């Protein structure tokens, strides 16, 4: 029964900050084994939605079901099966990459030898094995790689990723994309936000576009593009027109 349930089922989800609705009656169903792109302009409510899905912040109203389990009732069970790459850094700056990965593995219930072995393999994969510096000294791209490795270490069924490719070089981004595609192939679900629409266009099966806390369009990639437009054209048309900057005389 649980395996038949969608990876994500969100009903009438709201998050209010005073009178301002960051997420305003969101309804969303993400099937299992789907590579799902969650798009929207800055401040549309993408990160807030991911934070609610991970239990980091409570919703004002609405319901969330992940992998057939209800949040917050089955919070710990859900968390065990989620891999998270958030927008804010979740890395402890005063650990090395290897120490951090081993720590995360143990937090997800892996025995220390297993966590250490997986940590080594992942660091090797992300070309960070030889780097014994503290995470505080990592570049932005290296930090993202470690965050991605941390989301993989416990072999989750659902990945929630907020701008996972931000700051990552082309080689690293290709590697991350290949890994994610492979995860989908084995049956995992990816739910990611990204402002790089070409990446979303190439990777995702389905896409939802959110604006001002509401889903304004959802469907498969082909349904969205309609055969003639690019994803960027659709996105700009749905969430905002070109700005007329020529009016600023002093900028000329």
């Amino acid at each position: 029964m649980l395996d038949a349930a969608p990876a994500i089922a969100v009903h009438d989800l709201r998050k209010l900050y005073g009178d301002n609705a960051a997420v305003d009656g969101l309804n969303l169903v993400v099937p299992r084994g789907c590579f799902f792109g969650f798009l929207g302009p800055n401040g549309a409510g993408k990160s807030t939605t991911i934070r609610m899905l991970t239990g980091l912040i409570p919703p004002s109203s609405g319901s969330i079901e992940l992998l057939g389990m209800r949040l917050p009732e089955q919070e710990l069970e859900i968390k065990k099966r989620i891999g998270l790459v958030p927008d804010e850094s979740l890395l402890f700056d005063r650990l090395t990459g290897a120490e951090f990965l081993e720590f995360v593995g143990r937090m997800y219930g892996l025995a220390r030898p297993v966590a250490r072995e997986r940590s080594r393999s992942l660091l090797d994969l992300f070309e960070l094995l030889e780097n014994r510096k503290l995470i505080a000294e990592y570049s932005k791209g290296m930090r993202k790689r470690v965050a991605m490795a941390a989301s993989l270490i416990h072999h989750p069924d659902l990945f929630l990723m907020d701008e996972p490719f931000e700051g990552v070089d082309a080689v690293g981004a290709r590697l991350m994309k290949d890994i994610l595609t492979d995860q989908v192939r084995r049956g995992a679900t990816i739910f990611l936000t990204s402002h790089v629409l070409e990446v979303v266009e190439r990777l995702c099966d389905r896409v939802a576009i959110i604006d001002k806390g509401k889903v304004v369009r959802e469907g498969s990639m082909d349904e969205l593009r309609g055969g003639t437009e690019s994803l960027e054209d659709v996105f700009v048309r749905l969430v905002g027109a070109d700005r007329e900057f020529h009016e600023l005389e002093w900028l000329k």
Partner: protein
Amino acid sequence: MIRAILRAQWLSMRTFRLASSRRGAAFSLLTGIIWYGFWAFLAVVAEELTRSAQLREKIQAGLPFGLLGVFAYWQLAPLASATMGASLDLRKLLVYPVPRRALFSVEVMLRITTCAEMLLVLAGASAGLLRNPAFGAWRSLPRVLPAMALFVAFNLLLSAGLRSLLERLLGRRHIREVVVLLLVLVSSLPQLLAISGVPMRHFRQLFSASRNPFWPWVSTANWLLGAHLGSGAAVLAVWTALAYAFGRWQFVHSLRYDVEEAQATAAGAKEPSWTERLYRLPSLVLPDPLGAIVEKELRTLSRTPRFRLVFIMGFTFGLIVWLPMALRGRPAHSALFENFLVVVSLYALTLLGQVTYWNSFGFDRSAVQVYFSAPVAISRALAAKNIAAAIFIFLEIAAVAAASTLLRMGISPAKIAEAFLVTAIAALYLLGLGNLSSVYYPRIMNPQRVSAGGAARRTQGLLFFLYPIALLPVLLAYLARYAFKSQLAFWAILALAAGLGAAIYAMALDSAVHAAHRRRETILAELSRGEGPVVAE
């Protein structure tokens, strides 16, 4: 430009205040009222002492020492408490075409954050002098006002220079530990000299107004009281000019200072294997996730410059208190001496609080979300952080006890065991309160910076009022020992204190866990927020 910088800071603070909880704001207000209320009281005392015409001679003799006290507090208290106040975040401002003079002016003004209490005391003393007919009462206004203003300027400029210098020195790997040791030695020099037999009259002569009119506090006093008016003003003006030159020089050096370069580890550097084994020890007895979090805390804290500074201070202050006694031979068996290891241990417990239990998630910053997103109960995270804090506190006690034993201080194993036990019992109360403070009043701490900001100092001030209350059950046990001259009374009350402490710790942890769930959004927001152009942790 100065106004733009200050406005940006005001807006940043305003945004933060709006976002933070009412409870946090209330706590902040409470700390402010208690701390500055205490100093306002001292200002009233200063006013009372300086306004009486009958005390003319005493004022003449005592004012230089009072100003010396103000000077010492102004310059040394930020070092002793490792809270050097707010400062400009130059990394955010150097990209703009702001003249150095403007940046330096703001930096000097920010030194007020470390000494607002001294301004209160000086204002009290000034008010007293202006009402004292022996020194001309209100007619002395044209003399008192510029003298006080220049004395304040001198202190501000000097503290700006010292702060820049120390921030750079303490930011450098390997050098900072040596600097801390030197600072501790310097600050305890008077005690070392006094105990080593140097007569006190030498100190008095060194600082006496009649013999040394060139000290800034003496020249200020001379100017304020109308004695040697011209020379007093001239000497203070020279001191202020020197402080300005020193402050500017150090500030310009800081502009070129790269904190990340100074703290970078060598490529491929690996810690010795024995430290690795030490970090893993708790995991031998504690199951995961408790063991994993304790291990992570031991690693991260021991690599955090700010924590290391405080840890070294706790250890060295403890030792420096012992060392003069060792040099002098065994002192009389006073109550203080007999319980000195306990006193030093409790001092270490309170000092380490600012970097461990009072704000457990401060160094984690936005990474605190790991505890909320991983399948781990938050109670485990808090308990693990408490265990890690306790390990460091016991390491500190063990180090002081070992050094004392090496110095043949005659500390019995029973006394060492007593120090550990008493500290453990006191820790139950403080860790319980610390857990509540960590979830109700979380704030980011920058692990790179070795000192805390001005508000942190005020909070510490409040904590020093709270510590006696938290330590009361343990103090009662000692009171019983000396009042009844009975070991049985001591151990009986200590056992009661332990039971009560355990109950309070359990209740506080439970309450903190509920609050953490309820307030997780606020906690994450507080620990992920950005800062304005002024760093004021």
